[in-house]
């Protein structure tokens, strides 16, 4: 090394990482012989590409492949490298740097590139063996010592780094759990929709993802054996990797009195508060911002090199940065203001079947943010548009489709496929088969094709292709049936949405919106309750009810009144009550000063004017007297009205009260497209008004007459006669079967009356009177669903496990 040239300025670099060495390279590119350079590095290795730690962990790369500057390079550039020695002091008076081993170097200009430290959660057990961070080659070595098939790992942090670590460990055969504090993964790079797709994809690879999870402690004696969450969950593990963020490593700068906030403060020229000292990379804070991604750090290096070599007075201006997740098989890109704000608008494209989601955020016709998931091939093009920041103009129309906007329409493109290509994957129907059926049988509508060929009759995702074939085959003669969309968030009708929920096994509202290409990010007040109901009906026991998609009454389990108070109606089985129940109701009315008590049309007692804050106490008291929710607030089974029947009435021919109670015990708690009321009359005089109920039962000498599809309301509709049965057991089976048919086919907010008119009584008779096997199957499905539905919401809501947030104000300011 050429140490004797005295007229050169002496530049000392503290930090042999990416930021420091990139700056050195930029300096050498501008003024090759200007400085005599010394580099101190705390790590013993030469400078390596820290971004490539994930592929190193995953086994996709070797260490040699990720080295950026070999020892030979330092020699070739006449740079003195002091690797493995930590610098612990700078004497700013004498302009001298001193290492931990005592090595001293004088400087004219000093460059701090001390990087960042991984943030270690200050939790019990953080020092146990097997609890490590993910920042350096040494960390990767530690992980690989433990990694192996059958071993378990917990990664704390579902951000970019954490997920890359999880992916690497997963590839090494470990069973990986990811614990993330925020409700969605990678919230700094992804919006909720993309994060949801990501979570699904990672789960499909066998990872366990815990979002909204707060770590409490690491358990073990010497080695970690489990992670304990705040909710009490314990996750057994052999390894814990903390990837919860980084902190600028500004300790040295702070110790020697440089201006520091979170990081070492620099100006636009990357100069610290000492004019002889520059800083670059993750250790700096520029205009209140710290940086962890590589692109802006490269910009810093360029600006710094321009200034330190006096090439130009370049100011560092942080440019928009894009992020990609380096997990093979998962394409993801985000850049700019991907969350949007009040001044932006969104253009969203979803292709659920292909797992693709794109969101462009525009402000005043300019692209300011982008999220791509599933297909990031157009990301560079979007990123260019974003950085150029020019008005989109006509491009606005097609920008979401990428640089090559699709030109051919579906009919053209599907008609150009060979006859042997499969159109309907669910049923294995080929294009030729469909075209032949259309020609042979004169099919004219989607439903015709479904009935004849089964194409698009299952999950329905090929409906567009089948329509294309109809259009291609029939030309202008094809007149698609106009379907009323469910709401403004979709072009699909209720029936199509339900078919595809069941056929496509869509088990959450998010899945449905994603795969059915909802045009709004989270639906509206009209489709969310409908989807929630369709999920409940399709997936009993599996689907977790979404309280936020429930109308207020069903969320609060009480009826909202016009002044914002609530009414409470306990169930009275078959309209029969007792002195104990009435006494308990009277006590509740007094205790909570309930202003109005009224008898309802459904033979129950309504307590009106209950304050929201009192609801849980009211329920607890009513529960204590044996009463449960009457669901008077829900799209659910309401009442079973009865007359007194043969037990007391001189005209009664059957025990209508007992049957009413049995029916109510069987059906209570069931959710429906709309409210459902039942009644049982003990003789044809019909005092229980069974012929204006959704399902009415009227006793005769010979047995029971069953009626369906009646209601009171704005337009009174008397029931249609369904059939006669002889035994009570038959009444129960027919009732369950009819309710299930309505539950499965009724559109949300369509009562049985319009449902019966829509499908016709003969259709219902064919489904459940003539077809005994189908009746039994319907009844079985109803009873299966009831196993999960018959749980008193009042007991749940007044119990310890309830989410009680909605019952009280979050704060009082008086």
């Amino acid at each position: 090394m050429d140490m004797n040239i005295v007229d050169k300025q002496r530049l000392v670099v503290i930090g042999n990482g990416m930021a420091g060495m990139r700056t050195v390279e930029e300096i050498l590119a501008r003024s090759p012989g200007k400085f005599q350079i010394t580099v101190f590095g705390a790590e013993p290795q030469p400078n390596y590409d820290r971004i490539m730690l994930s592929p190193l962990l995953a086994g996709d790369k070797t260490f040699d492949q990720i080295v950026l500057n070999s020892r030979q390079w330092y020699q070739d550039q006449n740079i003195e490298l002091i690797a493995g020695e930590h610098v612990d002091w700078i004497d700013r008076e004498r302009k001298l740097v001193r290492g931990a081993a005592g090595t001293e170097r004088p400087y004219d200009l000093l460059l701090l590139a001390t990087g960042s430290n991984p943030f270690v959660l200050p939790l019990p057990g953080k020092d146990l063996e097997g609890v490590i961070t993910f920042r350096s080659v040494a960390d990767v070595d530690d992980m690989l010592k433990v990694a192996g098939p059958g071993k378990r790992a917990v990664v704390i942090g579902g951000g970019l780094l954490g997920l890359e670590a999880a992916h690497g460990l997963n590839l090494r055969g470990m069973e990986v759990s990811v614990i993330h504090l925020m409700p969605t993964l990678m919230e700094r790079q992804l919006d909720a929709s993309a994060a949801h797709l990501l979570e699904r994809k990672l789960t499909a690879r066998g990872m366990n993802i815990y979002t909204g999870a707060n770590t409490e402690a690491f358990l073990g004696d010497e080695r970690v054996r489990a992670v304990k969450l705040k909710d009490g969950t314990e996750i057994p593990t052999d390894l814990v990797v903390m990837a919860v963020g980084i902190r600028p490593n500004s300790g040295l700068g702070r110790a020697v009195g440089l201006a520091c906030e979170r990081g070492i403060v620099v100006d636009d020229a990357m100069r610290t508060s000492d004019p002889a000292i520059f800083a670059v990379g993750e250790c700096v804070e520029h205009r209140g911002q710290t940086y962890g991604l590589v692109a802006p750090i490269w910009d810093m290096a360029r600006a710094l090199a321009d200034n330190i070599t006096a090439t130009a007075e370049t100011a560092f201006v942080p440019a928009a940065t894009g992020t990609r997740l380096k997990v093979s098989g998962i394409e993801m890109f985000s850049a700019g203001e991907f969350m949007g704000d009040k001044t932006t608008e969104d253009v969203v494209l979803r292709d659920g079947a292909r797992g693709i989601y794109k969101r462009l955020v525009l402000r005043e016709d300019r692209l300011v943010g982008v999220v791509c998931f599933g297909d990031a091939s157009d990301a560079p093009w979007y990123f260019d548009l974003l950085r150029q920041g020019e008005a989109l103009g006509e491009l606005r129309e097609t920008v979401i489709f990428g640089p090559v906007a699709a030109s051919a329409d579906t009919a053209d493109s599907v008609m150009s496929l060979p006859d042997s290509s499969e159109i309907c994957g669910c049923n294995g129907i080929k294009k030729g088969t469909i075209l032949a059926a259309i020609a042979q049988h004169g099919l004219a509508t989607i439903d015709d094709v479904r009935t004849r060929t089964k194409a698009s009759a299952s999950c329905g995702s090929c409906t567009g292709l089948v329509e294309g074939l109809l259009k291609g085959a029939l030309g202008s003669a094809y007149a698609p049936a106009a379907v009323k969309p469910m709401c403004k968030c979709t072009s699909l009708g209720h029936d199509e949405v339900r078919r595809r929920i069941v056929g496509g096994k869509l088990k959450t509202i998010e899945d449905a919106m994603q795969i059915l290409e909802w045009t709004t990010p989270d639906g509206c007040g009209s489709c969310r309750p409908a989807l929630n109901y369709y999920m409940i009906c399709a997936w009993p026991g599996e689907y977790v009810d979404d309280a936020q998609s429930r109308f207020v009454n069903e969320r609060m389990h009480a009826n909202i009144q016009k002044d914002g108070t609530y009414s409470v109606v306990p169930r009275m089985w078959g309209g029969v009550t007792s002195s104990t129940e009435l006494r308990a109701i009277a006590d509740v009315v007094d205790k909570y000063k309930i202003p109005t008590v009224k008898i309802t049309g459904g033979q129950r007692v309504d307590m009106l004017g209950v304050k929201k804050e009192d609801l849980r106490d009211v329920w607890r008291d009513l529960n204590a007297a044996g009463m449960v929710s009457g669901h008077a607030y829900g799209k659910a089974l309401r009442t079973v009205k009865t007359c007194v029947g043969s037990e007391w009435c001189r005209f009664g021919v059957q025990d209508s009260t007992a049957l009413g109670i049995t029916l109510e015990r069987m059906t209570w708690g069931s959710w429906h497209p709309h409210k459902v009321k039942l009644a049982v009359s003990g003789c044809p005089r019909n005092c229980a008004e069974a012929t204006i109920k959704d399902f009415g039962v009227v006793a005769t000498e010979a047995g029971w007459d069953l009626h369906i599809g009646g209601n009171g309301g704005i337009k009174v509709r008397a029931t249609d006669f369904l059939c006669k049965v002889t035994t009570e057991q038959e009444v129960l089976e027919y009732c369950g079967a009819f309710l299930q048919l309505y539950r499965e086919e009724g559109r949300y907010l369509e009562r049985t009356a319009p449902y019966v008119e829509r499908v016709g009584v003969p259709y219902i008779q064919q489904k459940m009177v003539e077809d005994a096997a189908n009746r039994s199957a319907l009844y079985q499905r109803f009873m299966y669903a009831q196993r999960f539905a018959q749980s008193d919401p009042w007991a749940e809501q007044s119990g310890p496990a309830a989410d009680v947030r909605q019952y009280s104000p979050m704060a009082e300011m008086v």
Partner: protein
Amino acid sequence: MDGMARDVFFTDVGALNDIPRLGARTVTTAEGDIAIFRNNQDEIFALRDRCPHKAGPLSQGIVHGRSVTCPLHGWVISLETGQAMGADSGCTHRFSVKLEDGRILLGIGAKP
């Protein structure tokens, strides 16, 4: 939020996680309840808890995008402006609110 923030006194009324996503909670004040909304993107909005139509409690409505559907008669109110959307017209008073380190800061009235 932005333009209104000047001269407004902010009070910590709770944590972001005190409100369920796509939900709302109320803050009781001497002048009536204020509803604090949290949408799916974790944005926070504050409106007087009274629908401009018939004074329905907006905090009990269904939150979607940047709007809420009133539980009483289904009016859709913009959380950003407090204005009724679509064919309806009317406006609910809105308040400054901001999120700092997971805490919700509500701006009501001028600094004392």
